[in-house]
């Protein structure tokens, strides 16, 4: 609701005039006022779609009050406070200013936002949706918290550097439905390419941190994980997933063959598990329409080197859960056979899960949160490389081998990252 439409209600106008800006905040939080409430609930739903909390709520922090450190290749930036606090949050922002931020990447004071805030994706959202988000955000409890400064080096810590970046890599624009596609496909496209900002993790980036749009959704390194390929690649993508699999994964965190770990577990728990079945199906329809990437995928090709060393390790240390045949146990232990994460071009996620373990997503529909134990203390780089190579090439899997230096590099990177936080 814009301030103009709000003030058209004359009784409210009197109250606003009498009480000033703070009344606006209070009014914004009132419940049960017909349109207001419905719009707020819509906004709450969209906030789940956009997973605002993932960045804007810090661990042990107040809801949406910011302060969460976000690793970028250029340093750490802390998310801002988007509660309605007028001093430290966005309480004094108008809905136009909020729209400007989401659509153009410009804050209320005119400064440029860094694309760690995925405005290149949010730009696709409609004005109406963004207004609903705005209405919802005004109902969130106001929290006083000012984020620490980012750690970007000069000249990147000067926000005017974004002017050039935006010129090269950003074109604002609301989503335009494709008339050749179904309404369902378009809804899926709108969600994935817009508020869902899936590509922020799943689309590879260039050296300036911008999306390589020609390789959209083909998988990307992100904070020492590898977010997998979402195109139709049969080995490393969603090629062997049905539409129902995708929707089920997003809703429950599990399919019969895999479970969500790491950052995706958070996405499922906080975002996609709260979305409607229709929206999740639409996303699935859209993703299934993405054709497989070409020969660029390092996964296509000959099977990795098999060694009895890796096989022995697998039998002794892994098979009690993942089974001799690599097929796991549905809803509990992922199948490694035919798995996209296992066969990803980059083995980062596989190595990371072996090193650090992982906790699966738990949702209302599927509450079990099976945990992969950590092996980093128990196995050497050589051993992890051997067993990772083994699983990437066993049971018909066809992904490239993993070297001991791949493992030691990741160990070091994770150690450095954890001591920095």
């Amino acid at each position, binding site marked *: 609701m814009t301030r103009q439409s709000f003030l058209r209600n004359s009784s409210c106008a009197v109250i606003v005039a009498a009480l000033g800006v703070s009344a606006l905040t209070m009014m914004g939080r009132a419940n049960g006022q017909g349109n207001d409430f419905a719009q707020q609930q819509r906004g709450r739903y969209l906030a789940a779609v956009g997973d605002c909390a993932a960045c804007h709520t810090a661990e042990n922090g107040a809801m949406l009050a910011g302060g969460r450190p976000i690793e970028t290749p250029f340093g750490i930036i802390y998310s801002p406070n988007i509660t309605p606090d007028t001093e430290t949050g966005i309480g004094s922002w108008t809905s136009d200013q909020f729209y400007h931020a989401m659509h153009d990447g410009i804050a209320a004071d005119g400064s440029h936002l860094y694309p760690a805030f995925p405005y290149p994706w949010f730009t696709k959202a409609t004005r109406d949706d963004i207004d609903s988000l705005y209405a919802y955000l005004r109902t969130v409890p106001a929290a006083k918290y000012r984020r620490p400064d980012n750690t970007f080096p000069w000249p990147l810590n000067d926000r005017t550097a974004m002017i050039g970046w935006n010129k090269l890599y950003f074109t604002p624009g609301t989503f335009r439905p494709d008339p050749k596609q179904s309404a369902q496909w378009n809804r899926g496209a709108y969600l994935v390419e817009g508020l869902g900002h899936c590509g922020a993790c799943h689309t590879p980036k260039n050296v300036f941190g911008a999306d390589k749009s020609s390789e959209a959704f083909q998988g990307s390194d992100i904070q020492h994980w590898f977010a997998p390929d979402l195109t139709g690649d049969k080995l490393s993508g969603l090629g062997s997933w049905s539409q129902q699999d995708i929707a089920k994964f997003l809703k429950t965190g599990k399919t019969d063959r895999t479970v969500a770990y790491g950052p995706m577990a958070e996405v499922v728990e906080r975002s996609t598990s709260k979305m409607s079945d229709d929206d999740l199906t639409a996303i699935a329809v859209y993703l299934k329409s993405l054709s497989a990437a070409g020969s660029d995928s390092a996964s296509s090709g000959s099977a990795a080197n098999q*060694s*009895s*060393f*890796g096989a*022995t*390790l697998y039998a*002794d*240390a892994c*098979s*009690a859960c993942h089974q*001799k045949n690599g097929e796991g146990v549905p809803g509990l232990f992922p199948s490694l056979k035919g798995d996209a994460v296992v066969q990803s071009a980059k083995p980062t996620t596989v190595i990371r899960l072996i*090193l*650090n*373990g*992982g*906790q699966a997503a*738990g949702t209302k529909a599927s509450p079990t*949160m099976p*945990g992969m*134990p*950590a092996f*980093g*203390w*128990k196995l050497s780089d*050589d*051993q992890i*490389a*051997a067993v990772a*190579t083994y699983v990437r090439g066993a049971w018909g899997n066809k992904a490239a081998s993993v*070297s*001991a230096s791949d493992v030691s590099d990741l160990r070091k990177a*994770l150690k450095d990252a*954890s001591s920095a936080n």
Partner: protein
Amino acid sequence: MKSHLNRRSFLIAGASASVAVAAPAQAREIQGQEPWQPHQADAPDPVQSPNYLSFTAGEVAFVEAATERLIPADDLGPGAKACNVPLFIDHQLAGAYGRGQSWYMQGPWKKGEKTQGFQSRLGPADMYRAAIKAIDAHVSGKEVGKKFSDLAGDAQDALLSDMEKGTLTLDGVDTAAFFKLLLQNTKEGMFSDPIYGGNKDMAGWKMIGFPGARYDYRDWVDKHGQKYNLPPIGLKGGPGWNQKT
């Protein structure tokens, strides 16, 4: 979904209304999650040093001799000494176990009935120290200049038997309790995971055919009467785990 229950309905008239403080920050309060951290594992502490940490040279001599009588080398396989059982015991005694840290060690101390279990005021490390001293003194009392480790095997066995039966009375030492402890520790040293310093090269396990730290035997459930055919592995793996790619 709230029940009819509310706090007010519980309060009988006259219940006190003291001021409450907020839940203290020190309490480990868990809400809304199953706590988990990456890289977290309640993994054991393997033995680091190949050297004796707590035994004196004289104690080493006793323990090496005594444990070798308890589990001797023979055609079935190595004995306690070759399997580093004395080193295992030494490292155990150097830590929390040696102090009896998890045991109830408050007094008063009474001898008690046979059915009342361990009643010594000495933790394991102190018990070894006191017992070895007393036993060696006992031996040299009978044969000047000799200690337990100097005796012939038969004589050592006889002494160990007397301790086991409780017929060897030494001042200040419950020899039966010490023998029980020594025997238990010897078996532990022979058959525990090699990370603790004993069961060298898994020789104890190989001797009996125990596959160690394996975790999936479903293929063998139906194999009634068939001998298991894989070598043992420990927590740090086995020979098959140490190849290079």
